[in-house]
Structure formats: C-alpha cells, structure tokens
C-alpha cells in the first residue's frame, strides 16, 4: 500500500497539496507542522510584477467559511524565482507555482520566466480580474479563458494545471475548453464570489464589495463540480474546496480527483494536512486499496 502517486508525471509523496494563497511559500508554516511530509505546495498566487494587493479589510468570517480580499499581493515572479523558490525547494514537497495576471501578456511573460525556473508544476489561476475588460474575471467564459490558456501553453513546456473558478457559467464546458487549449490537468475550485455587510457600520465590509468565499461551507459545491468535471474530461483533476478532514479528502478522491488541495482548513488547525494524510492511509488500509487511484468510485 502506498500513498505515493503521480500527478502530470510528477511523483508526489502523497496526494495532499497545500492550496495557493493559504500556505504562503511554505516556510511560514515550517515551525508548526512537519512540512516535509506534504505531497506538494502551491505558492501564493504570483503575478509578473509585484503587487501590494487590496486596501481595507481583507477577511471576514462566515458560517463554516471565510471571505478574503487579499487581491494577489505577491513579490512578483522574478523575486519569487530568486528569493522564495530556493527555500521552497528545500522543504521537500513538490513545488507548484500558482500564476495569475491582469492581461494575457502578463500571464505569458510570467509563465516564460517560470518555464526555466525549476518548478514542478505550473498552476494557472484564471480567476483573475481582466484589466482590459473592465475587471471581468478571465474564468467565466470559455472563449476568454482559452485565450489565456493557449497563449501560456505556447511558452510553458512543463506540466500545467489550469485552476477553474466556480463562477464559470458552465463548469463542464469550461473544463473541456481549457483542456483543449492545452491544460495537462485541471484544479478546482477557486473561491466562490460572496460578500458581507457590516450591519452596525452599515456598509459593505470590503472595498471591492465582493470577496472570495472558502472553507468547509463550499465543500458540497466543490465536490459536485469535481465529480462532473472528472466525468467530462480525459485528464487528471485536482479537487479542492473546504477539505478539512481525511473524510473530506476521500470524498474528492472517490469523486475521481487525482490529488487534493487543503486551504482554509490549515488556519483552524495547522496539523490538519498531516491528519488528513494519516487518515487517508488508515482508510486505504481498512478498505484494502493499493494505490490512490483505486479509491475512485467504480462504474
């Protein structure tokens, strides 16, 4: 019995990855859990140029979830390659660089730099506001998303995941389109669009009004999307959204995910990712599964 598995040709110690934006560049959490035991780490969302992110409040707690409006604060791709990546590399888990952008050109330039940087996998985050189109998300309509994906595909030769937004008009059509445009695999879901209003101050909490919802609250929605996408495309799918326990992770693996990511759950319990790995191992032993891919629902 082994937890070891391959994702887009990359060997992972186990299928438990840390989701982008929730685990920094890995070193921040190094004192609080044994980071070397993780299957992989997705970097904080990078953009070609450094960004300071959004002003005003950036977080609001909701029932079994949280809204965030960090706004892609990051040091930029070059700084990442020079200063964060070497440390990340030293941690042990596979390194997935998460890349966003405001224009297609920005995505392409970022991907070009990452192409020779020695990352294991590129995760293309298409849930970013499209600066030229008045801020509409790249991830809503297949026609726009595929422009980004195929442009990046031309300059990035390594394994590439495309991370889908649950706001896509039709998640299955979006998945098929991204696959056809050159994605080697898909990851989903990014945050759902939500908002909150401060009832005593009587104004929306966030300057941008809307913010991204994550955490256990979204899990049933994420699971349904993963289940549908797995059945519609012929490539590996990485499932995430609200995974907090080994049971949650197993739900996604049963739905057909090749690997899972853990995000928000690490905030409530830094040891959650390791508890998930241990629980997964016991689950596989109990059910007599040899490989991660055996977990998948039959039929």
């Amino acid at each position, binding site marked *: 019995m082994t937890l070891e598995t391959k994702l887009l040709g990359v060997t992972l110690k186990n299928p438990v990855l840390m989701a982008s*934006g*929730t*685990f*920094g560049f890995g070193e*921040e*959490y190094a*004192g*609080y*859990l044994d980071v070397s035991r993780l299957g992989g780490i997705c970097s*904080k969302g990078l953009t070609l140029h450094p960004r*300071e*992110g959004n*002003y005003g*409040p*950036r*977080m*609001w*707690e*909701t029932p*079994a*979830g*949280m809204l*965030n409006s*960090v706004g892609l*604060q990051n040091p930029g791709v070059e700084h990442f390659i020079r200063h964060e990546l070497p440390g990340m590399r030293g941690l042990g888990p596979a390194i997935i660089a998460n890349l966003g952008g405001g224009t297609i050109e920005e995505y392409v330039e970022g991907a070009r730099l990452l192409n020779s940087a020695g990352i294991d996998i590129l995760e293309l985050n298409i849930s970013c506001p499209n600066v030229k189109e008045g801020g509409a998300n790249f991830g809503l309509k297949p026609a726009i998303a595929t422009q980004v994906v195929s442009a990046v595909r031309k300059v990035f030769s390594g394994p590439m995941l495309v991370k889908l937004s649950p706001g896509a008009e039709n998640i299955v059509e979006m998945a098929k389109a991204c696959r056809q445009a050159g994605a080697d695999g898909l990851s989903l879901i990014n945050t759902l669009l939500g908002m909150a209003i401060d009832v005593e101050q009587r104004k929306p909490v966030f300057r941008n009004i809307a913010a991204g919802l994550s*955490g*256990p609250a979204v899990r049933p929605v994420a699971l349904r999307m993963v289940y549908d996408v797995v059945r519609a495309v012929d490539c590996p799918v990485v499932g995430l959204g609200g995974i907090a326990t080994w049971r949650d992770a197993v739900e996604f693996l049963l739905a057909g995910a090749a690997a899972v990511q853990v995000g*928000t759950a*690490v*905030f*409530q*319990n*830094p*040891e959650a990712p390791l508890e998930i790995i241990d629980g997964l191992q016991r689950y596989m032993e109990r059910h007599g599964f040899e490989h991660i891919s055996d977990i998948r629902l039959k039929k």
Partner: protein
Amino acid sequence: MPSEMVTVRSNQEVGEDVFEMRLPSSVPAKPGQFYMLRREGSALLLPRAISLCNQEEDTLTFLYKVVGEGTAELSNMKPGDKLRLTGPLGNGWPLEELSGKRVLLVGGGIGIAPLLLAAKALRQQGNPADCCLGFPHQPFYQEAFQPDCGALSIATESGVAGHKGLVTQLFDPADYEIVLCCGPTPMMKAVVALCKAAGTPVWVSLENRMACGVGACLVCTCSDHQGKNRRTCKDGPIFRGEEINFDA
C-alpha cells in the same frame, strides 16, 4: 509542539466581561507575543488571537474580553475542556532596546494584557517601568501590575477609580526614553501623536483580523506611511508607532 490540543486549567471572570484563562505549555514565549486559541469542536471556523499576559513555569495566562461569539465561546469553557493552542506567535516587545532606559507602559482596557510581561521583564532587569492604565469604567487586573511597576497610575472615564478622564492625561512622554502602548486604536493613535511631538520613540501592539497567524495568508496586513504592507501577525504585532499609518 507549537500547535497542540491542551486542557483548560482555569477560566474565570476577573472584571466585567473580562476573563482570565490558564493553559499548560512548556514552550517559552517572549513578552508581547500572542497565541491562536480555538475550542475543540468550535462552531466557528477560525481561532482567536490572544496576547500572552503572563507565563509562570508551565502555565500560560491569557486575559480576554468577551466582545463577540468567539470570545463568548472561550468564556464558557470549563476546566478540563480542550482547545487548540498555536503559538507563541509574532515578534514581541523589543526588550533589547529597553535596557537601562526610562520606560513607560501605557495600556487601555483589555490592551493592558500584553504589557504585564513587559513590566515583569523590566523589573527583573532592575529597571522597572512606570505604568499608566486607562479603563472606561471599573479597572481590572491592576493589582497584578502593582508589584512589577515603578509608579502605577490609573485613569477611568467614568471616574470610579483613579484619575477621571483619559489615560493620555496621566503622563508626559518627554519624561521617558521609550513608550510601549496597547489599547483601542484611537487611544494608540493619540499616544503615538503625543510621543511624536515629544520626540519619544513609541512601540504599539496592533490588532487585526487574522486567519493563519504565521504570516502565510496576508489577510492581516497593516500599512506603513510609505503604503507598504506589513503582516500584523508575523512582522508584528508590535511595530514602531511612528511607522504605522492608522488611517490606511
């Protein structure tokens, strides 16, 4: 281990809506650091950030005020109940900069909590700090400060104890070489302004909504005057007051 399930030793009300909780831990912490606390099986997603108020042998003491659901949940905990404790976190007071200096501690309301260990450390260095504590109404926990301070003055807005008025009326920053301050934002702003005018360096302990507490998620950022982001949890919670843009 800096993130573990621990068992509540005691938890009792020590002032109006103010509770003192004792937890076991053997990891040494620095004055001004904080922890993330979350009740086992909590109805809430995130842990709550609480400053370390005191540490004796293997016992940590936290002083907290019930302001919402999370702190209410903590206040309902009984000895034997379990919670997840992550920490110590953050930078702590710049004790190295204080040695041999005339230090003033300024606390407002529940903001007095992180100052107690600073007072103790300075007293141990043989350099006790003066201490000014302000409360809206009934003071609490001032008796814990008494033995470890030089001069201790109290202000209450309602006038029930000490000076009737604001804590900022109790001191002149020009009398000190360094000021450490924690309290509500308007109070910290005022203290920073006074210190700036007097040319006295001041350090403040900030609060901000947090998720990870370790510097990974970037939801807790505050801004300096150059518009650069600082992570309250990791780069702070203690900052030079002059650097922080309280109006960002």
